C-alpha cells in the first residue's frame, strides 16, 4: 500500500514509518498484527494512536522501539532506516527514543533502589563519570516531581502515580527526543491521571519532546494529541489532526468509536450502537471492517480500501467515506 505521507506543515519528521508490517506466527500461520502502516511523527508533535484491544497498536509501539523486529517496511529515524539494524547498531540510537509502559510496577526491578534504576541506562549508554550520573539522576527525579529522598527507596514504597513518575524519569534520563507512551495512564485512578498528563505536557513543552501516545481511551487522546491515528485490525483506517477527527470523522469505524465513548453529561442523548456481528474473521482481500460496517457494499468484499486524502492532513481508508 502506498500511503500518502500525512505530514502537511512539518518538513522534516523525526521518525517516519513506511509500510511497516509485524508478523506473529499463530498456529503455524502468519498473522500480521501490524499490516502496512505508514505515518510520521514531527519534532515536538504528539501523535495519538487509538484502537481497540488487538488492533495492533501496542505491537506497533514495540516495533518502533525495535523490541520486535518488523517483517517488512521502514522505520526512518532522521532519515536513517533502523528497521533492519541489529542490537549493537541500535544501542547508540536507542537513547533518542524511549518508552513509558502502562504498568510501571511490572517494569521496575523490585530489588533496586530508584537511584540505581535511574542510573543504569546512563551506565549502559556510556556516561562514565559517577558524579555526572548522580547529577543527572537528581535533576530528572526533581523534574518529574519526586523528592531527592526517593532515590534511596524501592519501587514498592511508592503509589501507582509515583511509580509512573519513576517510569517517566527512567525514560527521560537519557534525554531522548521521542517517547513512546503505551497506555501510560490507563492503570491510574482518575485523580492521578490528571497529575501525570499535566506532567507529560510540561515535559514536552520544556524539553521539546515528541510523543507517540498509544491509548484505548479516546477522551485522553482527544485532550493530549496533536494528531490522531485510528487503527483497526493492524491497519490505519483514518488519520487527522485532533480537531478535525472529532469534528469530521469519516471512517465508519472512527464514527462508531467516537459515538461509543460515554460522556459525563446525563443530558446528552446516547447514540444507539449498531449490533456487532460476532465476527467470523472476514478473510481474503476485502476491507477488514466490512463485517461490522453499516455502509458495506459488494466492493468492500473484493478490495481493501487504500488510504486517500480527504482534506489537509486528513486521510481515510474507506471506499465510501
Amino acid at each position, binding site marked *: 500500500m502506498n500511503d500518502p505521507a500525512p505530514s502537511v506543515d512539518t518538513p522534516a519528521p523525526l521518525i517516519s514509518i513506511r509500510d511497516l508490517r509485524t508478523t506473529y506466527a499463530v498456529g503455524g500461520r502468519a498473522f500480521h498484527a501490524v499490516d502496512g502502516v505508514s505515518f510520521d511523527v514531527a519534532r515536538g508533535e504528539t501523535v495519538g494512536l487509538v484502537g*481497540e*484491544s488487538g488492533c495492533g497498536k501496542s505491537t506497533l509501539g514495540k516495533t518502533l522501539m525495535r523490541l520486535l523486529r518488523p517483517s517488512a517496511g521502514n522505520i526512518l529515524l532522521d532519515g536513517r532506516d533502523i528497521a533492519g539494524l541489529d542490537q549493537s547498531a541500535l544501542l547508540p540510537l536507542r537513547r533518542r527514543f524511549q518508552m513509558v509502559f502502562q504498568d510501571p510496577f511490572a517494569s521496575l526491578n523490585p530489588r533496586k533502589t530508584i537511584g540505581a534504576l535511574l542510573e543504569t541506562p546512563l551506565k549502559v549508554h556510556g556516561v562514565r563519570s559517577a558524579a555526572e550520573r548522580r547529577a543527572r539522576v537528581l535533576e530528572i527525579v526533581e523534574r518529574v516531581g519526586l523528592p531527592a529522598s526517593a532515590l534511596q527507596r524501592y519501587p514498592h514504597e511508592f503509589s501507582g502515580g509515583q511509580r509512573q513518575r519513576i517510569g517517566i524519569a527512567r525514560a527521560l534520563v537519557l534525554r531522548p527526543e521521542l517517547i513512546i507512551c503505551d497506555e501510560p495512564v490507563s492503570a491510574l485512578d482518575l485523580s492521578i*491521571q490528571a497529575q501525570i498528563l499535566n506532567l507529560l505536557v510540561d515535559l514536552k513543552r520544556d524539553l521539546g519532546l515528541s510523543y507517540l501516545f498509544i491509548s484505548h481511551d479516546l477522551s*485522553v487522546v482527544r*485532550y493530549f494529541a496533536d494528531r490522531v491515528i485510528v487503527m483497526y485490525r493492524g491497519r490505519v483506517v483514518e488519520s487527522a489532526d485532533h*480537531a478535525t477527527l472529532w469534528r469530521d470523522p469519516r471512517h465508519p469505524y472512527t464514527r462508531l468509536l467516537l459515538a461509543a465513548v460515554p460522556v459525563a453529561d446525563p443530558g446528552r442523548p446516547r447514540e444507539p*450502537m449498531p449490533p*456487532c456481528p*460476532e465476527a467470523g474473521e472476514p478473510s481474503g482481500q476485502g476491507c477488514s471492517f466490512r463485517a461490522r460496517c453499516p455502509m458495506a457494499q459488494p466492493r468492500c468484499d473484493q478490495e481493501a480500501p487504500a488510504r486517500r486524502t480527504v482534506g489537509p492532513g486528513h486521510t481515510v481508508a474507506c471506499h465510501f467515506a
Partner: protein
Amino acid sequence: MSPNPVLLQVRDLVVGFGKTEVVHGIGFDVAAGETMALVGESGCGKSLTAFALMRLLPHGARIFGGQVLFQGRDLVAAREKILRDIRGNEISLILQEPMTSLNPVLPIGLQIAEVLLRHKSMSRRQADRRVLELLSLVGIPEPQRRAREFPHNFSGGMRQRVMIAMAVACGPRLVIADEPTTALDVTIQAQVLDLLDRLRKDLSMAVLLITHDLGVVAQWADRVTVMYAGRVAEEGPVGPFFRQPRHPYARGLLGASVGDSGSAHYTTQRLVEIPGSVASAAAERGCPFAPRCPETIAACRVQPPRLEPVGEMHRVACPVEVAK
C-alpha cells in the same frame, strides 16, 4: 426518596479485614427498578460493599456491623440457607471478568440451566428451553448451537452477555454489576450496558452499578453514590450531581476527567489536579478527604462529616458545602 418503593436499604454497614475497617459505616438505598451507581477509585471499598450485600466476602473479610435490608429483611442477620435461596434468584451478581466466573469445562447452556434448576421448580427440559429464550434475550445468535459451546468459544463481550443471561434467568429484583464492562472495548461496553438497561426496564429489576467511570454513570444511571476511602462523600440524582457536584472530591474528579471538558486540549487548558493520593486518608481523624482538600476548615479535622441534604434527594458529607 425515589417515586418507586425502596428495594434495598444499606444502613451503617462496616466491613473490613481482620481488625481493620475498610468500609466505615456506609448507607444508601436502591429503589425498585432504578439504576444506582456506586462510584469511587480503586480501594475506596465499593467492591467490598457489593460483596458484603450478598455476604460473599473474600477470605479474611467480614461484616463488623450494620444492616442490609432487602425487601425489609436484614441479610446481615439472615441464616445462610435463606441467603442461598436469595443469591442468583432475587439478587444476582455480574462481575468484571466473566471468564473467571464461568466454569471453563461446562457448556454455557448447562451453567445457565443449573441456576434455573436450583431456584425454580422446572424440569430439565423446561430449563433447557428457557436457556434458549434467555440466550436470544441477551442477543446471542444461534442459541441452539451456542448453548452447547464452552466459555472459551465466546468473545469477551459475548461472555458478558452469557453472564447477564445467567443473572436475569430467575427474574431477580436486583442485579449487582461490579465493573461489568471495564475489561471490554468501548464499542462493546456500550452494547453490553444498553442490553443491561433494556432488561432492567423489560424485567422491572433494579441495577446496582459499580464503576469508576463517570461517563458510564452519566449515561446509564439514575442516581449516584460517590465513595471516598470507605465513606459516602455524596449522593444524588445524576442530573443535579453532574450539573453541580457538591463534594470537593466529586468536583475534583469531574474537573480531572478529560472526557468532561469536552473539546479541551492541552494547548489551551490545563487539567485540574487533585493533589496528593488517597493514602493520606488513613491517618486522618476527620474527613478522609481533608488532606487533599482545597477548602478545609477546622471542623473538617475533628470527625468525619455526616451526610446532609443540599437539594432534593441530594446529600453531601462536607460541612463547608452544607454551610454555603
